[in-house]
């Protein structure tokens, strides 16, 4: 009977992921002053978090496929294939962050909100790149540990990255917003 199996395997995982999201949400609720002071900040938050999730799960799933194809394993991890993947993910983070900032600014104008374009783009790019570096490193470490244990990376990296990714990205947005407010 797979109903029981589904409940036993999925419900605890959903609750743990939910607790992670409560931490991310609590970080967001601590930013109310900043959301008021920086118009447009709240517009970019769902986009940065979604971008981070999409790039890092795709990265992890490519590493999973590379493992199944026998291109990388725990003894032969730091090779050219992995480097190309890292450069690809970080380049994507940079390009897409610039697009997010620009789109958020342009779409705000007809809605009667006028964000500071430099501030918004800087916050998105900083948060995007820093969270990109942290999550890329984290993905490599998780995948390395999973290889070592001989598990299938496809089953583990997705939920693990989803839970940590949102918290780390939200903290990076908070950090980037504070930094930009201080220097500009």
């Amino acid at each position, binding site marked *: 009977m797979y109903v029981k199996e589904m409940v036993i395997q999925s419900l605890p995982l959903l609750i743990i992921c*939910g607790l992670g999201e409560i931490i991310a*949400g609590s970080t967001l609720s601590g930013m109310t002053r900043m959301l008021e002071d920086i118009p447009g900040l709240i517009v970019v938050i*769902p986009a940065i978090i979604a971008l981070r999730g999409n790039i890092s799960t795709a990265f992890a799933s490519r590493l999973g496929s590379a493992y199944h194809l026998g291109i990388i394993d725990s003894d032969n991890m730091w090779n050219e294939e992995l480097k190309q993947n890292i450069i690809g993910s970080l380049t994507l983070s940079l390009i897409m962050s610039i697009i997010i900032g620009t789109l958020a600014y342009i779409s705000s104008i007809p809605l009667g909100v006028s964000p500071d374009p430099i501030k918004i783009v800087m916050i998105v790019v900083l948060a995007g790149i820093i969270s990109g570096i942290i999550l890329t490193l984290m993905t490599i470490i998780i995948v390395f540990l999973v290889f070592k244990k001989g598990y299938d990376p496809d089953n583990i990296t997705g939920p693990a990255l989803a839970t940590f990714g949102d918290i780390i990205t939200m903290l990076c947005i908070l950090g980037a917003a504070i930094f930009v407010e201080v220097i500009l």
Partner: protein
Amino acid sequence: MIYRWKNIVKNSVPLLTICIVIEIMAGQILQGNQKQLLILPILLVSIPVINGVGGNIGSILGARLASGLHVGYIEYSIRDKNMHKNLAVILLIGTVAYAILAVLIYYISYLRDIEMDINILNFISIVLGSGVLLIITTSIVSVITAFLSFKKGLDPDDMVAPVVTTIGDTMGIIFLFLLIEVVGI
């Protein structure tokens, strides 16, 4: 060498750009309702939870359907009994998860002493109501995406997660404000 960074970038930019345009729309809905969110920060705590669980439910269902379609125990038919059963169980699991998490959000926010001028029953109704509407949506989107991509010869495993999370994020925020309107705060 299989991977080249330029190809990774080139292949990913179109889909990511579509996702981002939709997510910016979600962001603009938040901006439009920012006053309400700032008055009641417990709603800000709830948004990632509602969207996160909704995305997970859609992705779990999608992965199960993808495996079923690949292996052959789920047929490409809207009447497939195994698909209906998976759908029913995942909706049940999602509803239970939202009920538990709504209570957790309320008490964690209470302990953190954040502004929360809202009755617990109203709060649970808002989270549970928007959550259930969201998982019904993400589940339907997941079934459609899994079936369509399977028919087109694309791997459902690659397609379901990005489609479900992107549509889920926007619909989650729309359902949240709908429920706030209906239940009242």
